[in-house]
């Protein structure tokens, strides 16, 4: 019996040192990891739902997303003004607001920007939820802002040619232009009564989001260069509203520390007795 226990003991001693090494190493690895997503920071009250310049935005971490000219489908465009968008988001558990910011040298009435979300559990193609051939897709919810009207339109689409404003308009939007930069804030309640057509935001959950921007400049003939399908688009990225803080981790940590302390205590007592 004794030798076996001794061997187990030795293995465990080795094991513990390995675990400690992993603990120290693992913690540094998780700090180094980084990934791009829109994180809606939780704040208490006063989400700046129609103020693109509110001070509160500085508490939301910015994330930058690259844009492409839309060359995926007919009525393409080979070059667009906007190359990147910077996105921030805030929420208070009830309302949420997304701020999209981008460089545009001129302010035009036809400047426009939009957010797109997947709706429900089914995956939707980032180009308006166009049908996929082997996978059953879902709809998308598009929030559309135009400088001309300076308000948000709450829209649905499931494929090209299907995009239309919803019966229930739940989205607000407001833009502010200064120093060659547009800042547009979109806002809505986290949840609405229409889960079939509106994205429902549950704090803590990752949701797919995409962006589109139109520079409303005109060419020499007075025609709009960017309109409809001719625009800057992004791929799908992740959006998440931060969940309220969860303190249970501290409790588990305290239990583990207490266990380790107790272990030390008993060990030392045992050792002292043994001598």
């Amino acid at each position, binding site marked *: *019996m*004794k030798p076996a*226990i001794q061997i187990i*003991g030795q293995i*465990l*001693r080795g*094991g513990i040192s390995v*675990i*400690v090494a992993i*603990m120290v190493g693992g913690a540094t690895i998780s700090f180094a*990891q980084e*990934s791009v*997503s829109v994180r809606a920071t939780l704040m208490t009250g006063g989400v700046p739902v129609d103020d693109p310049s509110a001070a509160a935005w500085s508490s939301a971490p910015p994330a930058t*997303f*690259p844009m*492409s*000219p839309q*060359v995926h*489908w*007919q009525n393409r465009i*080979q*070059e667009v003004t906007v*190359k990147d968008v910077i996105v921030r988001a805030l929420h208070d558990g009830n309302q949420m607001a997304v701020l999209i910011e981008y460089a545009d040298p001129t302010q035009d009435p036809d400047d426009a920007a939009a957010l797109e979300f997947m709706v429900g559990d089914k*995956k*939707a*193609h*980032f*180009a308006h939820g166009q049908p*996929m*051939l*082997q*996978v059953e*897709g879902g709809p998308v919810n598009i929030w559309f802002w135009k400088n001309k009207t300076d308000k948000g339109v709450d829209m649905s689409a499931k494929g090209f040619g299907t995009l239309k404003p919803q019966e229930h308009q739940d989205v607000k939007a407001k833009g502010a232009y200064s120093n060659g930069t547009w800042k547009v804030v979109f806002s809505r309640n986290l949840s609405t009564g229409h889960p079939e057509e509106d994205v429902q935001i549950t704090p*803590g959950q*990752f949701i797919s989001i995409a962006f589109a921007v139109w520079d409303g400049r005109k060419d020499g003939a007075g025609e709009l260069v960017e309109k409809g399908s001719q625009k800057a688009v992004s*791929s799908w*990225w992740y959006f*998440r509203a931060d*969940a309220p803080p*969860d*303190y*249970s*981790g501290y*409790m*588990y940590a*305290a*239990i*583990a*520390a*207490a266990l*380790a*302390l107790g*272990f*030390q205590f008993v*060990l*030392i007592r045992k*050792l*002292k007795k*043994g*001598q």
Partner: protein
Amino acid sequence: MGALGKPIILMVAMYVFIKFVLPNIPGSAPLPSSLIALYLLLTGSGIVIFQTLSKESKDAFWGPMQRFLTGENLGGLQALRYGVLILFPLLVGWQTYGSTAVSDLPPIESRTIHPAPPGEYTGLSNPVAKTPDNIMQGKGFYAAYCSPCHGGNFDGKGPAARGFVPAPANFADPTTIAMLQESYLFWRIKKGGVGLPIEGTPWKSAMPRWEVELPDEWIWKIIMGEYDGAHQSPRTWE
């Protein structure tokens, strides 16, 4: 029994406590299995070490260790001993906190780059004659339709590529078209990203469904031009 009985009972009691009693304490939740394993490991290693120590305490390895832990005749090292005794539980607590913290990272979606094509797209051969003229034509179509994403140099770095994730394929890379048969390319070009099966994450792909705009013959010519331009040749064996 005897030497093993008590430890086993202790371990079972610990498990029952962690698994069934702890989650019912207000403000707590069921523990993740990794945590349960860590707690049990700590308890278990404690038990085994006592058992070995009570009998083997004069072990050469454990002698100095024991003196250090019990703090007898340590002198100047006493402070270090307290440091270790305080640090170890803190470290365990810290790690436990880290392992329970909710991940801030988005879900990782794995993507199969070359999923199996539908049956009707296996084993087709290019019906277009491989003449310099046809290859030229294919390259012309490529320049018009494909190069904005896949690049004039066939490297996937076209002027429209930057925003698309996954990125447009780099045909000069030996892991794209060089690994594939012409038949497979015909399927991918005709049906595009939306033609992929679920493991290819079709909802993310910007690859157009070219059957909507280009006749089959053009697609076969483009395939020729693409291989020629990228200095690759199709995989021919079955």
